[in-house]
């Protein structure tokens, strides 16, 4: 059965007098991958924020796995996102952040494969570093590593390829592709169509979603 993970109908958002999203419709099936593209300011991030309930739309209906997106623990156990800028705990190393996330979801570090994941994201030699001391690219890698380490059913990612080098992009794309093969759903925004194709997502232009 083709069940939808995300259902957006007639969504409208404006900032003051500027209408960013007008009558947007979007459906993402369970197990599908959708990559939103479009120029800066067209509303990609705004749409992702609305889907993750981090922004309230002016009008329209949003459903995630058949219910309204919310701030409940159940919602956040199913959905992992990089739409917001991350925060880091004081005095906790990169590896300990990863362990904290895995343990909160009931996995031991060994079961979750923390060390392999950090190695895969090029953070193996930075396991003892404090996240604020990492470079912006490394922080982006850590954010993605945490997002992919924890169990989830839906990933909502805002320009995951940002600040990554070519090798990093390729490995993140491969991991997203594997995530989908395991039954996960991906909705992301990106400017890199090669990356989107490598991640196995279908590209949808924002201009096609926004009613004229």
């Amino acid at each position: 059965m083709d069940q939808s993970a995300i259902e957006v109908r007639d969504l409208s958002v404006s900032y003051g007098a500027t209408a960013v999203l007008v009558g947007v419709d979007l459906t993402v099936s369970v197990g599908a991958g959708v990559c939103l593209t479009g120029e800066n300011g067209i509303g990609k991030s705004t749409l992702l924020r609305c889907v993750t309930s981090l922004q309230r739309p002016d009008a329209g209906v949003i459903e995630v796995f058949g219910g309204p997106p919310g701030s409940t623990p159940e919602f956040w156990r199913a959905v992992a996102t990089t739409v917001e800028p991350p925060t880091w705990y004081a005095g906790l190393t990169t590896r300990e952040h990863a362990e904290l996330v895995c343990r909160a979801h009931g996995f031991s570090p060994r079961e979750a494969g923390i060390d392999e994941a950090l190695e895969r994201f090029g953070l193996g030699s930075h396991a003892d570093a404090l996240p604020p001391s990492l470079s912006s690219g490394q922080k982006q890698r850590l954010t993605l590593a945490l997002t992919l380490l924890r169990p989830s059913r839906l990933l909502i990612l805002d320009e995951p390829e940002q600040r990554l080098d070519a090798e990093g992009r390729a490995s993140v794309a491969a991991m997203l592709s594997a995530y989908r093969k395991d039954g996960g759903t991906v909705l992301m925004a990106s400017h890199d169509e090669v990356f989107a194709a490598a991640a196995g997502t279908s590209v949808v232009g924002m201009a096609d979603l926004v009613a004229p």
Partner: protein
Amino acid sequence: MSDVAAVRRWVRRTQSAHRERGETLTTVYVALLTVLIVGGMLYQQLTAIVWPAAPSMSEPAAYSLIMALTGGLHLALRRLGPLGLSRPAASWLLTAPVSRRRLLLPSLWLATVAGSAAGALGGFAILGHAAARPVPAATDTLLPAAGALLGGGLVLTALAAQAGRRWSAWSDPAAYLLVAAGLAGLLADSAGAAPQAPAGWPAAGVVGTVAVALALVVVPLFLLAVRDLARTPNDRILEASRTAGTFADSVYGVEPSFVAEMLERRYWARRRLRSRPLPARLPVLVAQDLVLARRRPGRLLWLAAAATLPSLLGNPPGWVLALAVLAGGLVAGGVTTANVRTDAGNPWMLRMLGLSSRTAVAHRLVVPGVLAALWCATALTVLTVLGGLPPGPWWALGLALGPVGGIAAVRAARTGFVDNSLLPLDTPMGSIATGPLIAAFAGLDALLLGVPAIVLLAPGDPLSWTGVAVQAAVAALGTRLYLSATTATGRVELKA
């Protein structure tokens, strides 16, 4: 090379061209008025701190106070630089082809004047607390003068520490040691009930000799410091300028968290850590708090030492003791609440962990509660041992106060930024900003759960186990109410 004074004059002239006329005058007027009003309100209390009605300190205690003040002043000067520039000057003038000595000289003067003034005030305070009245005129001038010279000397040691890491590597620990030794001396003195310093202490001859010796050392060294001023490395000056800027922001925006955040950031930036597995048997957030507490050994050590502070109060009324113990519990509980502050500011990690706000806060209360319990129990035990309390299981009352300190610390950390958009309260004395007031009382209000302890300590009667049980019951009920009123099982974010 351009003349700094000319550049500064030009900057000032250009700024004043687009600044509203009289703006500077208004600022000066408001600042002066604030000082006068606050000074007028607190004049008597402030004077009593430096110059109490009757001196009561013993001679060894006076020496301990001198040590604590000396170490404290050095540390304070180190925190503020002592050499710093305003942020615009640090950005534009430090990199410009101007004389570095002239650029930094005003800052050195300011530090010297402030350091000397603080030293002189310290001298007065020692006279006020220890010297038998009437204080001879010669001592009355000489000790503050020696204090001022010592303050100037401390500016020089702080300056040397700012310029070279080799110097700071031993001068900073030495200052901490001085403060610790001074406090220990004060404690030992209050426990031993030593006699008050004899009349004629300090001898004018000794103080005069010390002052002359200090002058002979400090003045030439000061001249050398002026000569070598340009050698202070840029990064040190930039760091001090950022510190001073953050302090200014904090005062101007009435937002103390800016300073707390800066100190926290600097502390962790210096640390080199090794990842350790989180204790597996504990709930995950409790395990994380434990890791954080273990990584702040200095703070734990200070807290342990501070558990003796309530006994230093002398023989105050019971309710003052109770308030001191409660406030100490709040501070002790605050060792790990940086994690709560992170979650309250941005719940990204809480969403990543997928925990409800009720679970998160309940777990986050554990380590602060235990630390507060241990602190209060230690403080009350020290008081009992030193004979400051009637018989009874006071240590158990301390343990029962743990949840109170824990809730107060967590509540204070959850407040977040000061809300300066709230309407001010108009009173006959002038208007009061409500935002900072509410922020200042967040957390303190939770100490109301310690009212049974105040009632038990105030009359000076022996303590019964019933009293302990009442306090424990109030604390348990308070924790339950706090959790059900401010958190939810269906919400991740700490703020509703």
